[in-house]
């Protein structure tokens, strides 16, 4: 199983393999049977690997009883979301498709402009989109296998079409209007949520499945990252009160298991809120806890980045006569954040998987659905846990892998570790 390290591949495009490398048998001899010990290793591990692949393939395609996924696909996606209100979800997806398409379009034209300015020849290798979008597309295909009617597929295709149109539009928007586009994106995200909950809609307490998982991941990331950066800066402040509180904050939330925090927010909070004060609903509380917890970790990661910067950077910025805020925003943060991208993405991936813990506070996220459905009348007592767990693992894996790929792309683009 020889794989080229993707990181080296992307960051060093010059290192293309020489054409006409070893062919067929020569490759096998060179890589699998170069000497006695390696031959032995190949002969031992080869059959084991083959058997593993065979067993997995046999389960996936022959013995696995996948009807439970087919029947419950909607439940896995949205939990107990009322089925007659699903159109709201599609409206939200359409809104998100448009704003994400717009944002990507603008980002693309910015990247182009930057490339033109620096004199680089900006072009993408033809296989980049495949590598970027391969995992999510694979997931979509898998879901397509389980879908019973064509409607969701058609609607999804329509949403992708909308995104493509918006992408084209986004590329036409002049770069100086970026600020307005950011505003549109924020409004779009709010609008998407309103489309589901507003206008006599579906309260978040009945959301479930993948919808809830994505909602928690994206929502917590959006709030935790800025908060984490602010706390990291506060932790390095020269003002003792600020530094002290930031330290207490970080140590407090890092020192508590997430489950304990979730339970506290869920069961203990009502005890000390005044009775007249309406307790926020459980989804809000879980979201706040996830944000507080994640931001403490983000703060420490960002602090690492800040400490890694040579002091000369700040001094140079001061010498230029920049205000303290501009020093931080233009000189310090961009460099500090760039150097900690891998750790930040690691935190994002870990948050994505940590959202499974909200099942402890009575929310039916993706994993909980997978645990419940084998108890249904049609599937009871048949031990279908393997099928449901494999299916949700695939979703978690695709999400995590996709995030890690995007981070590698970002690192390559920003030249992490090269300058």
């Amino acid at each position: 199983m020889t794989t080229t390290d993707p990181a080296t591949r992307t960051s060093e495009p010059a290192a293309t393999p020489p054409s006409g490398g070893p062919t067929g048998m020569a490759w096998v001899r060179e890589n699998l049977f170069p000497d006695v010990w390696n031959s032995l290793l190949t002969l031992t591990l080869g059959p084991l690997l083959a058997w593993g692949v065979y067993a997995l393939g046999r389960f996936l395609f022959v013995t696995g009883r996948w009807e439970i996924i087919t029947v419950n696909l909607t439940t896995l996606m949205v939990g107990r979301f009322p089925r007659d209100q699903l159109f709201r979800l599609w409206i939200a997806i359409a809104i998100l498709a448009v704003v994400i398409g717009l944002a990507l379009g603008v980002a693309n034209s910015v990247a182009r402009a930057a490339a033109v300015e620096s004199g680089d020849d900006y072009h993408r290798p033809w296989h980049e989109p495949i590598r970027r979008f391969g995992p999510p597309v694979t997931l979509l295909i898998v879901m397509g296998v389980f879908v019973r009617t064509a409607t969701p597929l058609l609607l999804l295709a329509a949403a992708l079409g909308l995104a493509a149109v918006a992408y084209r539009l986004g590329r036409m928007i002049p770069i100086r209007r970026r600020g307005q586009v950011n505003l549109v994106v924020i409004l779009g995200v709010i609008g998407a949520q309103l489309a589901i909950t507003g206008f006599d809609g579906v309260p978040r307490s009945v959301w479930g499945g993948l919808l809830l998982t994505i909602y928690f991941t994206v929502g917590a990331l959006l709030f935790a990252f800025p908060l984490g950066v602010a706390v990291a800066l506060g932790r390095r402040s020269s003002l003792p009160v600020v530094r002290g509180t930031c330290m207490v904050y970080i140590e407090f939330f890092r020192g508590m298991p997430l489950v304990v925090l979730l339970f506290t927010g869920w069961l203990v909070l009502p005890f000390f809120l005044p009775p007249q004060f309406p307790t926020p609903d459980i989804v809000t509380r879980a979201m706040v806890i996830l944000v507080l917890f994640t931001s403490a970790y983000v703060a420490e990661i960002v602090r690492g980045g800040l400490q890694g910067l040579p002091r000369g950077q700040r001094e140079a910025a001061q010498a230029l006569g920049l205000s303290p805020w501009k020093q931080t925003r233009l000189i310090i943060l961009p460099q500090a954040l760039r150097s900690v991208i891998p750790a930040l993405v690691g935190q994002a991936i870990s948050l994505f998987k940590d959202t499974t813990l909200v099942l402890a506070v009575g929310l039916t996220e993706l994993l909980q659905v997978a645990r419940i459905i084998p108890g249904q009348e049609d599937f009871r007592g048949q031990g279908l846990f393997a099928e449901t767990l494999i299916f949700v693992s695939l979703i978690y894996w695709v999400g995590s892998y996709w995030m890690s790929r995007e981070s590698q792309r970002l690192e390559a683009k920003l030249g992490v570790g090269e300058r």
Partner: protein
Amino acid sequence: MKTIPNAHKRRWRSMRLVAGGLVLALALAACADEDAEVDDPGTDIDDADDPDVDIDDGVEGEEGDDGEAAPADSGDSLLNTVQDRGAVVCGVNDAVPGFGLTTEDGDFEGFDIDFCRAIAAAVIGDADAVELIPLTAEARFTALQSGEIDVLVRNTTWTAARDGGEGGAFTLPTFYDGQGMMVRADSGISSIDDMEGAAICVLSGTTTELNLETEMASRGLSYEAATFEDNDTLQEAFIADRCDGWTSDRSQLAAIRSAFPDGPDSVSVLDEVISKEPLGPAVRDGDSQWLDAVNWTVIATMIGEEFGVDSSNVNDLVESVDVDEQPALARFLGVAGFDPGLGLPEDFAVQVISQVGNYAEIFERNVGPDTGLGLEREQNALYTDGGLHYPPPY
């Protein structure tokens, strides 16, 4: 009980500190100066801050005491709160077939779910005005005490500890269950006394495990417990001969037996009942008006069956009942101008039965012979049919 409020106060303080710190941090982030030279005096000032924190603590402590007393005895019954809110929040189980489960269409279904809907029908007049919160066995009573749920309808056994220390107040049982023992039909075991030295499969962390221990000890039998997290893995172990007996609630055993891979006759449930398991709704202690409302909703479903009132004929009966000839029925249907003072609408029983059904209907729909569980009424029949349901008169 005592330690919990203190813990809250401490948490509250820290939260306040943190929140205040955050606001400051955000405001001052702009001025963040990374020069390390000022660090040393900073540490001292940091320490000097501490008295400040303590003063804050004192004030918070008093506030905390007020807040803590308020939810339990604020004079206002939960009944009014629920009616104002327009929804009943029920703590339920989302993974027990027949009692509470998410269906393929994303609905919640089950015996317990129906009783939650019945409470909503009685109190609010709309069986759909429910909010169902799935709870784990460990979290259920904490959720009830914290006011996170209004009523716990989660196949919960009524025990002294739960009625007392855990702060629950139970209504009449909705379902009489009991722990039983299932063995392979060809094992030659006909009584628990035959099970000396046997390996017994049991779910971990349940009262079932404890009851088994008590029962075997009282019979002077030695045994080996094999514990599992869920019924599916337990079943695989049972089929693989890893244990001789399988103990669980008899309702669950009946369901498992009816869907047993080798056919229901390959296993048998012993006649002995190891423990009594009266399952029923519970509310928070100290709110008798709300307890009455929930209790009489349960009773109304049973009286409905007693009077032969079901969802198909209830509306006709309301029209046709003669107050003089059938005064009891007329009172029950709320057409006799009789208000028992429960704080419920006069026609609450009609709402319950027309929207959800009487006890027999709820039973048949969720756990009866035509369902996957295939349970007979047995002890869950009315007293007139030889069962244990003896509803107080209306």
